[in-house]
């Protein structure tokens, strides 16, 4: 069981760990008189380092049996449940979807305010995941700056609302169009690039948008952001306690109810559900449209596409633009729900989380993305105590997924077009 190679590996790994961690954790700079001196840290961290080195050594030594056990554990994990084939049974599918939607709409009246709030946040991420999925999963373009379009949508609503007093409902389509426009002009020059190059350039664009928002202090308030953004209204009815100047009416007064903040939370939640349903509808149509087929064809063989007269740049640009539009919708809803936005909300890590949702869900798969979005937003809330280890758990989850299910939770099954015999 113990072989010579394991022993050498163990020694090397332990020594490397000792050197690295001794430098990183074991010593400390201190002021002494006028100069800096290197001091040893207290004994505790030294013990920790020693224990770490021993563990690493032992792991390398017994590497084979350990990995074997992990492999067996992997085999013992439950296989993913097989969903009943709903394609053969469209009636059942419609019925299930209607029930699901009804349950989603009734649920908030029985749930706590915090739970509803969390659900709304999850819905925003579902929308972002579905939007990015068009770009990454369907068109096969790695976009690391997706959060930039989310920011464009959010700021479009925040600015139009605070400068011109435009309502959420007017701004929602404008925000989508604005983000789409940004997607178009950014996509135009960069979509000639492939793979890694595209990823890097889009990452840059995401950062540029954020930094611009940060620096255009006069317009956007810079790092202070924009606050007191108006909430969405229901046919002009506001959800506040007191009517704002020039407001049409109050929700609770109109319906003769006592004021409660919960109404607003439920209203936002229902709005988010409807937006997600709309997104799902649009994407499902797109998949069955010529453009959806062209995305897949382009992913499979770009050269064949060109020989058939398809213009790859235009087709990629469509995906980029449509994907950006959904980020715009999500952004304006986010701004309306939050009431306050600043460039801080649109840092790179958001792009990473959205991309993780797409990859975790199984590129291209919509149900998978919904599941993944729930995992990525609800789990951190449940494990509040482990807040500091959030990124660590995030990494562990990714590693675990790569071993267990590299194709994602629910890999994509594209609706195939069938020809019925006449």
């Amino acid at each position, binding site marked *: 069981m113990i072989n010579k190679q394991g022993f050498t590996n163990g020694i090397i790994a332990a020594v490397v760990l000792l050197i690295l961690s001794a430098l990183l954790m074991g010593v400390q700079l201190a002021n002494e008189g006028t100069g800096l001196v290197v001091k040893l840290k207290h004994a505790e961290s030294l013990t920790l380092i020693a224990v770490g080195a021993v563990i690493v050594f032992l792991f390398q030594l017994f590497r084979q049996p350990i990995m074997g056990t992990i492999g067996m554990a992997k085999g013992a994990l439950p296989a993913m449940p097989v969903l009943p084939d709903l394609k053969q049974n469209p009636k059942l599918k419609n019925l299930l979807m209607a029930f699901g939607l009804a349950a989603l709409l009734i649920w908030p009246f029985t749930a706590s305010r915090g739970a509803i709030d969390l659900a709304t946040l999850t819905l925003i991420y579902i929308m972002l995941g579905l939007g990015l999925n068009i770009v990454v999963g369907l068109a096969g373009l790695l976009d690391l700056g997706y959060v930039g379009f989310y920011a464009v949508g959010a700021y479009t609503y925040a600015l139009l609302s605070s400068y011109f007093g435009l309502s959420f409902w007017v701004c929602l389509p404008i925000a989508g169009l604005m983000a789409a426009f940004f997607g178009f002009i950014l996509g135009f020059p960069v979509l000639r690039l492939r793979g890694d190059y595209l990823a890097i350039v889009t990452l840059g664009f995401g950062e540029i948008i954020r930094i611009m928002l940060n620096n255009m202090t006069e317009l956007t308030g810079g790092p202070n952001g924009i606050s007191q953004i108006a909430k969405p209204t229901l046919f002009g009815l506001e959800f506040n306690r007191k009517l704002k100047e020039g407001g049409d009416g109050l929700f609770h007064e109109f319906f003769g109810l006592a004021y409660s903040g919960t109404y607003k939370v439920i209203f936002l939640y229902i709005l988010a559900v409807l937006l997600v349903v709309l997104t799902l509808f*649009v994407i499902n*149509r*797109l998949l069955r*449209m*010529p*453009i959806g*087929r*062209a995305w*897949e*064809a382009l992913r*499979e*063989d770009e*050269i*064949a*596409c*060109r*020989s*058939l*007269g*398809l*213009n*790859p740049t235009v087709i990629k640009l469509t995906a980029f633009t*449509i994907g950006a539009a959904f980020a715009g919708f999500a952004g304006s809803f986010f701004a309306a729900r939050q009431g306050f936005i600043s460039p801080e909300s649109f840092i790179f890590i958001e792009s990473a989380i959205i991309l993780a949702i797409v990859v975790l869900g199984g590129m291209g798969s919509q149900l998978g993305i919904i599941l993944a979005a729930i995992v990525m937003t609800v789990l951190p809330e449940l494990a509040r105590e482990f807040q500091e280890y959030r990124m660590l758990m995030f990494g562990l989850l990714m590693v675990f997924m790569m071993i267990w299910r590299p194709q994602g939770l629910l890999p994509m099954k594209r609706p*195939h*077009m*069938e*020809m019925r015999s006449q």
Partner: protein
Amino acid sequence: MSNPLLKASGLSMRFGGLLAVDDVALTIDEKQIVSVIGPNGAGKTTVFNCLTGFYKPTSGEIFYKDKPIHGLPGHKISRLGIVRTFQHVRLFKEMTVIENLLVAQHRHLKTGLLAGLFKTPGYRRAEAEGIERAAHWLERVNLLEFANREAGNLAYGQQRRLEIARCMVASPELLMLDEPAAGLNPNETDELNELIVSLRDIDGISILLIEHDMKLVMDISDKIFVVNQGQPLADGTPTEIVNNPEVIKAYLGEE
């Protein structure tokens, strides 16, 4: 006499130190089957790539229906009516047969976003027409029963036929086939022979063919161009070519 459908002259393509195509001239008339033959590595595929915009020729001019097309990108040339296959099968393997044929009709279908989202009558009509055209061509190449199969699961010979059908739904006036008979058995080659002839005689299109199968080439060609080491060696009718001493020398080597 009417002008040729396609006319290329002085076509050269250089890859670094290698002059893969050297001063090749080519004319294709309407409703003709024209073949390009030559030993391996002669530069036949490179000529194809230049004509269809996949390579930018180092020098030379190409006129299609009297309009210059050299320098245009591949998808634009395809839209003008020159559609090609590749030496290796390039189907969309994970898509179904019928979907392959619909992708090829992309520009004939209604691609407006709103039309598709709301399934307007115009959109439905265009889609129905697309499926009908696809069905017609599947029938022509004898693949109708496989319409809903994944293209990658078809037998090799079927894949090659599907490639031709996929070109044809894009309604080309000049079809360019790069070694369509490679890897086919004699039966399948005979079917291919009939199919290509029918494309000329029934559909009235021209075909430019690269092929190593001499029986097929001699059977169906109206005109043959021979290239050797990038240079044009001879051109003429099949009878002229088989009797040309230069060609015999290039193919059989000097005694």
